[in-house]
């Protein structure tokens, strides 16, 4: 790409304007049409100009009332609207030029080579629509719109979905089959290769599109299955894909590797030696299922995922207005007792009140600056895995996101303000500069205030956006609680997007890569790998009432999760052109929280009871914050230095936590040992204990030889009092522990 081709020439813009004027006047000749096409396709800037021009034109037509009766609440106008406008005008023959040209460009502009599902525009046009449908305004009562019908019935009440018994969430969903304990595992060294028929074609439909029609289609097939059936289906889909791609999956990992992996993933720390021994001595086919169930039933699980989401939702940096511990505590309670993701999202989006008291309120308090632009972008990114911050300023060049979509979503946050509890002053414009919270704290409130959001397109034209998402536009009156409405839409019309986004993110949590990469950029421009599996899991997750524990059960008991991280082929075969093949387990770096929790476990400081958690987490937050740096943009980004680079290495080589931990390990293995009278077996046992405590495995022969030699040398060289000799021996044990916790093997989840 050269700089020359990037130049937008004013004279071309003039020519474009003239041609577009003629297009809209329907006076374009065939030659001029060709010229226009050539210009528009010659440069993205001209393409954008063309789109903007048509958008404005459509809006002007609308404003002039030339398109028929106004409805009471006007829908926002964007590209899709323009096309509808154009379609309506098709009754007049002269309009055909406009329509065909618009469609032609639509196809060119929005076509990407890998997108086999085709552009949305064409689909829309292919379906004959009556003019009544085209102009009907989707009001918040879905019954008014014949297209949004069963199976998802929306009403103004909270959805009444039968929830499983909260006290035993994993075991008692209403439609369950056999208990998770009875799930059959493949017990050989290799995944079972099954020959099963392919999927019905309906699974192949694209999952994630913002259009209302597609949004409801998916659940038709997604009859909830029991855990055993879901896992069997996951395995079948994996094996089908491996067979189709001629991929040889890695062998199953050993028990100790699997145990360390699943404990790290679900509890956020390495397993203790006791947990390791307990698992290894367990018998029977269902021991993995039993272990996963035990992990998921624990508060440690809930707290670990509360950590994970707290970091995503409000970051790790201190913020004067944000009480991240409150948010974490709310999330931990939810994940422990009522692990239904859609409800968590609804709570986060609709929360009000003082963030020091109401955990979920912290989410929006962290992102409400700058006209809620960050709140809009982060909501789309985290809950829908959509990158919308770009369409804040312009339509998306590669998918069908429009600038209007951004501002329509933004409009849901328009009533939301942060006020000082004392005095009621509005604070969000000051947020980036506040170093302390005002006396009495703040609260998140909904003002009784209606009206749309105004925004500008790139050509300086002011536009208006009404609160609308997934094809549902809500009323704009003062009495409508917009955030509650948004939560309701996400739980109903947006249900499949919400499920797919969560599944994609959690998949990437367990397997390093999502079905799409980046994980939070779903859309037709970014095709998913394993699309059938992605769709199946998303359907089942939605059908399970968004039960996060069940989703994790399915994932952790799948064949893929058992695969070794050792490749059987080449690294290139595991990641073909950067795209994950999922033929083995990819190594994951530990998060800062996982590092801290694992060190705490090794030094016996990991909390055993819930009441000890608060103090423990305070210490951990302080430790982690030393490594966080704010990016100082309006999007509240931050950088954490514990990312596997030099600062983390220095902390583990030389930091206080690391020094104390290796000391504690040495002391604990020395208990009841008299180094003056050590047998050779006992000395081997010391090395073995350290290795088990740190790497959850037996030492290799090479390690045993080398470290025993070092211990032997220390015993020979040690002089002075018995106490001093003991201290020197302990130092060597510390060195061994240091080497293990500083190793590459320790630093990853494998």
């Amino acid at each position, binding site marked *: 790409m050269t700089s020359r081709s990037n130049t937008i020439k004013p004279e071309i813009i003039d020519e474009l304007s003239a041609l577009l004027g003629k297009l809209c006047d329907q006076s374009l000749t065939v030659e001029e049409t060709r010229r226009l096409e050539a210009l528009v396709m010659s440069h993205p800037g001209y393409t954008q100009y063309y789109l903007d021009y048509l958008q404005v034109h459509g809006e002007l037509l609308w404003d002039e009332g030339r398109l028929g009766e106004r409805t009471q609440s006007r829908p926002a106008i964007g590209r899709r609207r323009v096309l509808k406008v154009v379609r309506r005008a098709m009754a007049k023959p002269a309009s055909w030029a406009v329509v065909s040209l618009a469609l032609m460009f639509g196809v060119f502009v929005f076509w990407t080579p890998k997108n086999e599902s085709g552009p949305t525009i064409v689909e829309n046009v292919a379906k004959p629509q009556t003019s009544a449908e085209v102009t009907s305004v989707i009001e918040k009562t879905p019954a008014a719109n014949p297209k949004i019908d069963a199976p998802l019935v929306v009403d103004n009440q909270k959805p009444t979905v039968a929830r499983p018994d909260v006290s035993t969430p994993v075991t008692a969903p209403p439609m369950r089959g056999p208990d998770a304990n009875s799930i059959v595992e493949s017990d050989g060294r290799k995944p079972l290769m099954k020959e099963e028929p392919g999927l019905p074609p309906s699974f192949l439909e694209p999952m994630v599109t913002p259009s209302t029609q597609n949004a409801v289609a998916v659940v038709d097939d997604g009859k909830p299955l029991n855990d055993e059936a879901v896992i069997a289906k996951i395995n079948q889909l994996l094996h089908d894909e491996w067979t189709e791609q001629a991929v040889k999956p890695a062998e199953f990992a050993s028990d100790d590797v699997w145990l360390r992996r699943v404990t790290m993933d679900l509890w956020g720390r390495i397993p203790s030696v006791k947990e390791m021994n307990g698992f290894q001595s367990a018998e029977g086919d269902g021991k993995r299922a039993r272990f996963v169930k035990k992990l998921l039933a624990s508060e440690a699980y809930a707290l670990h995922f509360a950590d994970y989401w707290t970091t995503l939702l409000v970051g790790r940096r201190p913020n004067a207005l944000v009480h991240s511990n409150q948010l974490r505590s709310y999330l931990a309670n939810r994940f422990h007792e009522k692990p239904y993701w859609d409800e968590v999202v609804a709570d986060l989006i609709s929360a009000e009140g003082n963030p020091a008291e109401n955990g979920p309120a912290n989410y929006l308090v962290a992102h409400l600056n700058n006209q809620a632009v960050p709140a809009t972008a982060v909501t789309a990114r985290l809950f829908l895995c959509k990158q919308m911050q770009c369409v804040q300023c312009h339509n998306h060049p590669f998918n069908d996101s429009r600038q209007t979509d951004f501002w329509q979503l933004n409009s849901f946050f328009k009533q939301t303000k942060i006020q000082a509890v004392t005095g009621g002053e509005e604070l969000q414009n000051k947020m980036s500069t506040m170093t302390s919270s005002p006396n009495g704290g703040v609260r998140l409130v909904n003002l009784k205030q209606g009206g749309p959001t105004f925004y500008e397109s790139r050509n300086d034209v002011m536009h208006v956006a009404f609160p609308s998402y997934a094809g549902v536009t809500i009323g704009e009156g003062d009495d409508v609680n917009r955030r509650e409405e948004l939560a309701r839409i996400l739980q109903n019309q947006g249900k499949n997007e919400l499920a797919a986004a969560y599944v994609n993110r959690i998949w990437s949590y367990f397997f390093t890569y999502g079905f799409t990469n980046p994980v939070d950029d779903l859309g037709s421009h970014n095709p998913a790998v394993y699309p059938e599996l992605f769709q199946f899991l998303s359907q089942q997750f939605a059908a399970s009432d968004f039960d996060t524990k069940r989703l994790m059960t399915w994932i952790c008991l799948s064949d893929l999760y058992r695969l070794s991280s*050792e490749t059987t082929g080449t690294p290139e075969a595991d990641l073909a052109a950067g795209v994950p093949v999922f033929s083995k387990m990819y190594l994951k770096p530990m998060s800062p929280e996982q590092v801290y929790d694992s060190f705490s476990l090794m030094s016996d400081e990991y909390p055993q009871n819930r009441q000890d958690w608060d103090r423990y987490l305070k210490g951990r937050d302080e430790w982690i914050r030393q490594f966080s740096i704010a990016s100082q943009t309006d999007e509240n980004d931050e950088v954490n230095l514990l990312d596997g680079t030099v600062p983390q290495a220095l902390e583990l080589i030389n930091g206080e936590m690391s020094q104390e931990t290796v000391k504690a390990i040495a002391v604990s293995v020395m208990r009841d040992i008299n180094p003056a009278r050590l047998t050779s077996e006992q000395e081997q046992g010391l090395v073995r204990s350290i290795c088990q405590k740190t790497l959850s495995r037996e030492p290799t022969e090479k390690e045993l030889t080398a470290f025993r030699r070092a211990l032997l040398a220390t015993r020979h060289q040690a002089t002075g009092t018995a106490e001093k000799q003991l201290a020197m021996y302990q130092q060597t044990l510390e060195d061994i522990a240091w080497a293990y916790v500083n190793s590459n093997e320790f630093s990853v989840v494998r």
Partner: protein
Amino acid sequence: MFNPLLDRRHFMQHVAAGAALTVPTLGFLEHLSANVQQVKKAEKACIMVWLGGGAPTIDMWDLKPESKNGGEFKPIATKGDFQISDQLPKLAGVMDRMSVVRSMSTREADHARGRYYMHTAYVPNPTVEHPDFGSVVSYELGPKRSYLEIPSFISIGGGGGSAGFLGMSHAPFVVDGNGNIRNAEMRNMTADRLGQRLSMLGVIEDNFIRSNRGELPQAHKDIYVQAKNLLTSQQMAAFKTEQEDAKTREAYGNNNLGRGLLMARRLVETGVPFIEVNDGGWDLHNGVFNALKNNKLPPLDQAVAALMNDLTARGMLNNVVVLVMGEFGRTPRINQDVGRDHWASSWSLAIGGGGLKGGRAVGATDKDGVGIESQSYLPGDLWATVAQAMGIPLSTVHTSKRGRPMKIANGGTPIADLLS
């Protein structure tokens, strides 16, 4: 020049090879201190001042006093043949040695994407992680400076960034604005004992590296070599700006930006080829003029002017490229909150030193600052210019992990007006 047995890049390998733990003392401390004097002022380097958040360059380098978009500031004459903002009087005095490129057109107006694009010259792509240009410089020039014991890409004051497919050992080494590096001083630890520990570590690490699990295990080992160097190197003194005399410190300014640029100069003198100094807080969606006048511009004016004068006085200017930019500019139009929003299609940056031409305004925008009325430039063109100034051949091609060839600076063309 250096003892090949103790070359830092091979230290760990040697340690690992001698797995029998009989290398209690390697004497690397003595070796390292012997090299401290081999400071190379004449080496090429680049100091990038990163205006994080996106600076309103229309109020700094390309004023439009006649336009409705003009804002509150007036243009003033400089020592170059163009005008800049009246809020930058000290910089006006060094503009004979700096130029302004007024026709950057970079299309990514989201912070993360814009940051990525400006740092790497590539737009984000899900299948490749491109290296920051600082990592490219580290990769190209770092290994040639065997005396250099500290990382060859240093980022002062945060910012992050990535070495992408060039590997974690070329990632930016991030220090805070005061040059503090946590845990970089050995506590209760002799060099002997560290040596013993590292040799034990070698026993465990190599086994895992050989087990065929991708790149992370080797990258971890490379990082540890760097970390060990930091613990033992005398070159760490480069981070200590308090060793400068009071007058110099005062000239740069007693704030993070001033200290950061002073530190950058010291790092250049130590041989570090690429230093990024992060100055955040430019995301001025509201109250842009007050923020610029009272907070943002005075320290920038002072620090960058001081750096230019200092480099000149020390005879280093012809070897050191100084670059001042952020991820994009800001909208010519002033919004309802007297702010400016994100704007990538027509903006300016300042560049000087390294033998590049000073005193010129390259490219031009239209009367309202909205469109470009000259050739426009991409980040690749900018980095190609810097590569040329630093003596890195433009024919350099790196290969991504998947074997894809990647031209340096995305195949950009050096900006001719800055070269001759």
